[in-house]
Structures are given as C-alpha cells and as structure tokens.
C-alpha cells in the first residue's frame, strides 16, 4: 500500500502532522525527490506556526464581563431602544437649534478656533487608540492620499516628517463643520503622537499666521492658507516642539 500515489489531501494531512506512520514515510520519500513540493509543504507548516503565534495569545486574554450569561435579554434591548429614542430626539432638537442659530458666515477667528477645537477633539479621540488609530495605514499611503483627495475634492499630500522624528501612521476621514476632513497621524519611535487635521473648504481667500490653542491637555497650532485649514495637535509634546513640527509641515506644504 505504501507505494500508492500521494494525493494532495495526504500532503495537507502530512503538513498537519496527521498521517499514520506508513503513509508519512511514503510522503517523506516522495518529497525527498521533489524539492519544490517539499518547500511548499514546509511553508504551510511555517504559516500554521505563525498563525498560532498570532492568535493563541487570545486564549489567555481576560474575558470581558459582557460574555457572562444573561437571562433577561429583553430588558437590555428595551433599555437600549429607550436610550436610542432619547438620543434621536436630542439629535433632532439639536439639529433644529443649530439650523436656526447658524450664522451665514462665521468670522475668520471663530472659524480657526472652531477648527482647532475639532482638531483637538479628534486628536483626543484617536491618538490613544492602539489597534485602530487610523482607517488606512501608511503602508497604503498612495491609496490613502487618493481616497482622501477624492473625498475632500483637492489634491492632498501628507507631509514627510521623518526629519523631525515623526513617521506617518496613516489617516482617516472625519466629518468637519461643513464637509469631510482629512486626519493624519504621526508618531515617534517612542510612541509620541501628533495629528494633522486638514480641511479644504475654508470660505474666503486668506492666509493667517500660526495660532495656538489649548483644549484640555491637547496643544494645537492652526493656520489657514487660502481654502486650506490646518491644525496640528498633540498631547504628548510641548509647545516648542509642536511649533517646530508645525513649521516643518508648513514648509513642506509650501515648498
């Protein structure tokens, strides 16, 4: 029997270490004269090992309390539905209020301050993220830029900040005051993060100097350059270093 032809299924079983000894030896003899096949099977084993290396640690993670058995499910759903209804009502009311009170054109200073505030909130929201700091990673930078440029309707470029010690983590799309906004994240090797908030729909055609704002623990330098508004935020680094980075960003965007 041991000289029966080797099937693909047997090769798979061999890769998984599941053949009985007789067939295992037959497969080994078969592979010995076929280096390419032997390499393929060795790769399968390597991949399996790497796969376990990545996911086996999940087994020992602490279980979130939400997995505890719940007998009264309907209560939870009713509660959630109730909150959702309240949320919808508040949202509808707020929307109506905003609609009523919104001025036709915000003054320039207010626009900048509002942008800085939104940028600071975005920074505070996304910079502590470990697994999902960005939507598209720097490893797909071309795709990221094409996507954001398309959505914002203007050619965008993420500044290269390697010279001041920051590498691009990636970016995401955010809702801004009047339309979509691009948000780029950078970090140092030690993990200090800065984010660059970019909008392309600033009304009026003006330029401003750097302005500085603090929102809680987040420091922000922001400026307007014709239709573009920029805000550079960080909670990890001091004002001076942030200014240095802001200068680099500015130079890169206006070569």
């Amino acid at each position, binding site marked *: 029997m041991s000289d029966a032809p080797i099937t*693909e*299924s047997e*090769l*798979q*079983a061999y*890769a*998984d270490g*599941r053949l009985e000894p007789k067939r295992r030896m037959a497969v080994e003899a078969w592979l010995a004269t076929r280096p390419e096949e032997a390499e*393929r099977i060795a*790769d*399968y084993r390597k*991949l*399996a090992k*790497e*796969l*376990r290396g*990545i*996911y*086996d640690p*999940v*087994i*020992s*993670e602490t*279980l*979130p309390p*939400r*997995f505890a*058995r*719940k007998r009264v*499910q309907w209560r939870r759903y009713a509660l959630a539905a109730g909150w959702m209804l309240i949320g919808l009502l508040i949202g509808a009311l707020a929307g109506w209020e905003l609609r009523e009170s919104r001025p036709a054109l915000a003054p320039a200073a207010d626009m900048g301050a509002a942008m800085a505030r939104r940028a600071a909130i975005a920074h505070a929201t996304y910079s502590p*993220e*470990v*697994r*999902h*700091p*960005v*939507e*598209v*990673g*720097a*490893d*797909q930078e071309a795709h990221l830029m094409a996507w954001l440029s398309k959505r914002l309707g203007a050619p965008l470029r993420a500044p290269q900040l390697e010279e001041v010690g920051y*590498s691009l*983590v*990636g*970016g995401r799309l955010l809702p801004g005051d009047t339309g979509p906004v691009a948000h780029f*994240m950078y*970090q140092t090797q030690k993990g200090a993060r800065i984010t660059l908030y970019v909008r392309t729909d600033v009304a009026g055609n003006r330029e401003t100097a750097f302005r500085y704002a603090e929102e809680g623990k987040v420091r922000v330098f922001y400026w307007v350059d014709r239709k573009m508004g920029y805000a550079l935020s960080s909670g990890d680094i001091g004002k001076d270093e942030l200014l240095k980075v802001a200068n680099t960003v500015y130079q890169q965007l206006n070569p």
Partner: protein
Amino acid sequence: MNEAQRLVDLIPRLRRYARALVGDRATADDLVQDTLERAWAKLHLYRRGTDLRAWLFTVMHNVHVNRVRAARPTDLIDDEMPELAQRPAQGDALLVRDLDRSIARLPAEQRAVLLLVTLEEMSYEEVARTLDVPIGTVMSRLSRAREKLRTMMLGQSAAAAKLKLVK
C-alpha cells in the same frame, strides 16, 4: 460537568477563532457575544453526548454567515469568488501583521476551514461536521487556502525586498 459549564470553558477558544475570522477585536467579540446568546437560547437543542465544541462552532459559523450576509447582501457563497470587501488595513505600524491581513483576503469558506484546522486543530471530519460540508470540500478548501496564503506571503516578501532596493 454540565453543558453550560463546558460551554463557558469554550469561550476563550471561540474568541481566538472569531478574532482570526473577522480580524478586529471589537467585531470579533460582538460575534462571540451573538454566538453565546444564541447558544444559550438553543442549548436545549444540543444532543447530549455529541461533540459540544463542534456544535458551538457550528452556531458561531451560522451566526457569522448571517452577519456577513446582512452586512453584504450580494456576498456569494462560492469558493471561486474572491471576497470583494477587504478588512481595512490597520495602521499602527507596531501591530500591522502581514499574515493577519492576508488571512482576511482569503475567501470566507477557505478561511474558516484553515482556521478550524490550524487553530482549533479539529480533525478534517470535525471541520466537515462543523461547517456542514463534505470532507472532500474541506480538503480542497484547505489546500486552496494554504496555497493562496503562501502566494500572498511570498508576494509580500518579494515586494518588501523590492522596496528596499528602491530606497
């Protein structure tokens, strides 16, 4: 030990499989939770003495398929159909794992087989029972999953080598 306790003991394994199946932690834990709720509700249908793990993973498989179907009504269950929607690449440079991402690109049916065999170390018969497909299908999906994964990983290391050259 009663079924309920054994079921609880299987939760970490459900989580491992779910994490590999859908990628990110939050979605994976949502899947686990949906699975558990359904499993608790249907535990009386489980036949004592049969394989509880296979039963539970079947429940998860069905929940997963329904979730995917709900999210993407045009998803075709076909081995030859590549999955159109890819999990967005997560950007934290420290956590980006090529293998992780390549797995997400496998067709869903092949990914399930590969993960049950590799992570759960289920026998091919158990996988066939869990997914309710013939064993021949299990073997061909396993073979295709591995070959695709290998090709993707080889492609990545080739691309990485090329990048280094360009720099």
